[in-house]
């Protein structure tokens, strides 16, 4: 809280106020780390304040003022995180944009937000923005962090980050009161200003700019930081896309209010290694990441010697039986405890160390359903992995699991100060302290999203279970019916399929159709390794995906899912009748996935219309040619003949029989 002036003793209501507070209460504690040239560099809160102040005043010198929108584009780097605070200090509005967005997507966001200045990471982003600079007349200047390759560019509208900071320092040197005036302006804020525009990943069409206010964002962050007991002793690694609400919330918002130390990886490719070096205490990853981790662990264990393998599998069994009970403090026999302790010395400890999970106190996963086996695996190792349900519009938590009240198939109870209601059609509605003001320049969408009494519609269908925990089934609009009237929840089926490590992605169809069919994407790492071990040669993803042996493997998986479905009264009707393995990986560059890697169902339905038709017309194969977009925006073509396989469905059986399996 501000130590001087009229606001002395008041709780901070903006993030820049927290910066000032942290710089005084934790002046010499590390605020940010970044690995550069192979060595971890660090900045204390005091140094961070100086860096931010210099940049912020430099921006002021360039004419940035209240209400200006500043785009931030790049990977997780300290200078880009500082930019958020530097911009907010001027009551200007940071607009983070996904760094891997193609030019067209980026142009849309920059234009829509009316960005006048962009702070970007490197030449790649500068080039991208210059390529469409004609379309965004509002954009005046670009500031870059990494000068490589930019030396010979025209620098009339291009500046280096450090140059702007230098300008700020000069301004402070020539006017002694400048720095104080900057701080006073921050302290004077009542938190009513807009804190940030967070553009949604665009699961449904064009992305929307979620407008968040400063004091509500601070309140939300304080609530959850309190819920998980985050303090200045905590440690995180920021590796998720900078523009994603989750990253902004977990690393920036929670980071500032709890004054924890945030590490930035050396590069996106070194995250796994940096994680091990940092050893975070708080960790968030989408289920996909945990899945990849488990897959890579299992693959590497396949290559281990037989003794190691035996030890590994033995103690994994022990963990499976007793691990979660020990984690939750439930009673466990002494022998089992001893065995688990030994397992910890031999397997779990070293494994957690390799993954960088040794110090984790709280880990969260969200965004998609997580497989019960996968979820239990990490919990059994002694990692306090929990689920949360959140939305950009809520900034960020709606529900979260409390320590000790963990169930793999629910997302927990409402977090403090959040109200939840289920609408008559099953849609989850909520009210939260951090909730957004509006979608920027989109009144219609804003109106559609709020109910009359001020709740926000999530678009997700959910139910409360007997514990009072929320369970999300699917997107509300995706839940449909087969022609025979049986319930069809595509995501429910897809998730069951995706829980197999060999299946990376699945898209189910069936609404208003005779039966249910799926498109499958194999997981190249898992299936590739399996092929290697079985002496099956292949030259490309496409060839591997089309191999009869791979189809055989997929057939077993699909059959297992059908068997599971047949055991559930409501879902037995939507067993999978036919499937195919897609010849290319679904990719965000082709618009098939969102930037957060969620499937864009309707787009895929259009794009692969001929394949879907073939799934229903009884043909056994189909030739298809698909346009693909390379990372530089150029386009090419992939064509293949895709096999289609029929499945037999299982008669609906009671849940009792399933338990006997």
């Amino acid at each position, binding site marked *: 809280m501000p130590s001087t002036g009229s606001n002395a003793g008041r709780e901070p209501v903006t993030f820049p106020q927290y910066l000032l507070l942290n710089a005084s209460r934790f002046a010499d504690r590390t605020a940010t780390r970044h690995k550069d040239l*192979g060595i971890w560099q660090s900045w204390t809160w005091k140094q961070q304040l100086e860096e931010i102040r210099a940049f912020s005043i430099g921006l002021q010198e360039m004419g940035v003022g209240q209400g200006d929108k500043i785009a931030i584009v790049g990977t997780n780097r300290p200078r880009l995180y500082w930019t958020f605070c530097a911009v907010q200090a001027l009551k200007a509005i940071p607009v983070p944009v996904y760094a891997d967005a193609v030019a067209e997507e980026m142009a849309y966001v920059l234009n829509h937000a009316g960005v006048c200045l962009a702070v970007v990471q490197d030449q790649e982003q500068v080039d991208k923005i210059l390529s469409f600079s004609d379309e965004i007349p509002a954009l005046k200047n670009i500031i870059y962090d990494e000068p490589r390759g930019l030396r010979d560019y025209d620098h009339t509208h291009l500046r280096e980050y450090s140059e702007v900071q230098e300008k700020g320092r000069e301004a402070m040197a020539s006017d002694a009161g400048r720095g104080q005036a900057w701080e006073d302006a921050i302290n004077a804020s009542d938190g009513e200003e807009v804190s940030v525009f967070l553009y949604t990943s665009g699961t449904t069409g064009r992305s929307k700019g979620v407008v968040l206010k400063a004091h509500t964002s601070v309140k939300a962050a304080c609530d959850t930081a309190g819920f998980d007991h985050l303090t200045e002793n905590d440690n995180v690694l920021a590796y998720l896309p900078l523009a994603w609400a989750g990253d902004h919330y977990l690393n920036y918002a929670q980071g500032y209010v709890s004054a924890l130390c945030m590490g930035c990886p050396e590069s996106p490719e070194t995250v796994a290694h940096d994680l091990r070096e940092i050893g975070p205490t708080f960790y968030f990853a989408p289920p996909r990441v945990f899945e990849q981790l488990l897959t890579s662990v299992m693959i590497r264990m396949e290559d281990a010697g037989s003794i190691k393998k035996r030890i590994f599998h033995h103690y994994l069994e022990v963990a499976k039986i007793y691990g979660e009970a020990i984690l939750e403090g439930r009673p466990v026999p002494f022998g089992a405890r001893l065995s688990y302790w030994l397992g910890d010395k031999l397997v779990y400890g070293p494994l957690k160390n390799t993954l960088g999970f040794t110090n984790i106190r709280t880990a969260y996963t969200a965004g998609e359903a997580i497989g019960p086996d996968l979820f239990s695996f990490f919990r059994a190792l002694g990692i306090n992995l929990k689920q949360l349900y959140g939305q950009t519009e809520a900034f960020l938590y709606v529900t979260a699991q409390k320590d000790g009240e963990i169930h793999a198939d629910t997302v927990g109870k409402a977090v403090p100060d959040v109200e939840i209601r289920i609408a008559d059609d099953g849609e989850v509605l909520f009210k939260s302290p951090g909730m957004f003001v509006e979608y920027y320049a989109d009144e219609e969408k804003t109106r559609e999203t709020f109910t009359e009494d001020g709740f926000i519609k999530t678009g997700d269908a959910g139910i409360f279970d007997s514990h009072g925990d929320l369970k999300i089934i699917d997107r509300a609009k995706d839940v449909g019916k087969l022609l025979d009237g049986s319930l069809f929840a595509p995501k429910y089926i897809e998730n069951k399929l995706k829980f197999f490590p060999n299946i990376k992605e699945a898209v189910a169809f069936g609404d208003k159709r005779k039966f249910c069919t799926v498109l499958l994407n194999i997981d190249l790492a898992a299936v590739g390794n399996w092929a290697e071990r079985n002496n099956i040669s292949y030259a490309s993803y496409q060839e591997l995906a089309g191999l009869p042996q791979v189809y055989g493997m997929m057939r077993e998986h699909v059959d297992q899912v059908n068997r599971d479905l047949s055991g559930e009264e409501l879902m037995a009707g939507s067993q999978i009748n036919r499937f195919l393995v897609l010849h290319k990986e679904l990719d965000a560059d082709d618009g098939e996935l969102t930037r957060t890697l969620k499937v864009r169902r309707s787009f895929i339905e259009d794009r692969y219309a001929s394949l879907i038709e073939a799934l229903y017309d009884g043909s056994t194969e189909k030739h298809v040619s698909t346009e693909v977009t*390379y990372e530089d925006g150029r386009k090419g073509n992939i064509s293949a003949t895709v096999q289609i396989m029929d499945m037999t469905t299982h008669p609906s059986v009671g849940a009792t029989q399933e338990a006997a399996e």
Partner: protein
Amino acid sequence: MNQHIDPGSLRADDGIERGGMLLHVDNISLSFGGVKAIADISFDIKKGEIRAIIGPNGAGKTSMLNVINGFYHPQEGTITFRGEKRRHMRPHRAASQGIARTFQNIALFKGMSTLDNIMTGRMTLMRSNILAQALWFGPAQKEELAHRETVEKIIDFLEIEHIRKTPVGRLPYGLQKRVELGRALAADPALLLLDEPMAGMNLEEKEDMSRFVLDVNQQFGTTIALIEHDMGVVMDLSDRVVVLDYGRKIGDGSPDEVRNNQDVIDAYLGVSHD
């Protein structure tokens, strides 16, 4: 990041202006027994430019590079490098004079890490003796730290942080090529010879590599001579192109001039040689 990889190096300043003559090859002829690999070829390389050497298979491109860095000894002709005329040259002399190269078939130490491989590129610049190095004592320690810093800058420059400690034998081809470029850069060269840096790469890898070649040239002002088969790459990257065919020079000039040269068109489209 600093503009020069190693500001302390003596090589950075040789008194030749950008655009001045760095290397001059005069009437070089090279034959193996009765086979004439190179016949009476002359061309020059100016400081700071990207010079491409192109030609059909067996035209003598790689032989030319081998002559420049002293691996082959021409029977006739002279080479003037930085104003110093010479006929014979040893590869290690060439290396210590500031000529570094990469190879058509990657020639890295497969069992060593990326870091160590690039570190070997600094070898010719190390001054302390082997005993001091082994004991990591006194000046040797200081020297190694300085070299390591330079190597880290190269790793950062080539964006290969994630494979810093990986044995290069385990790396995919495209990355190995990048490591090899890193090792050549580590020698802080005045002239960098690249023998088919993009051979066997896919489109994305080629684009990355082209970016790096351009960046090396711009950022460090390194003069580059490269052999390449991908005409698109050659025409985009190079300032001047020399074209060889059957050991003879048939064209020399800007990419546009070369593209419209009838002899060059004939050589590539295949006209009978009498």
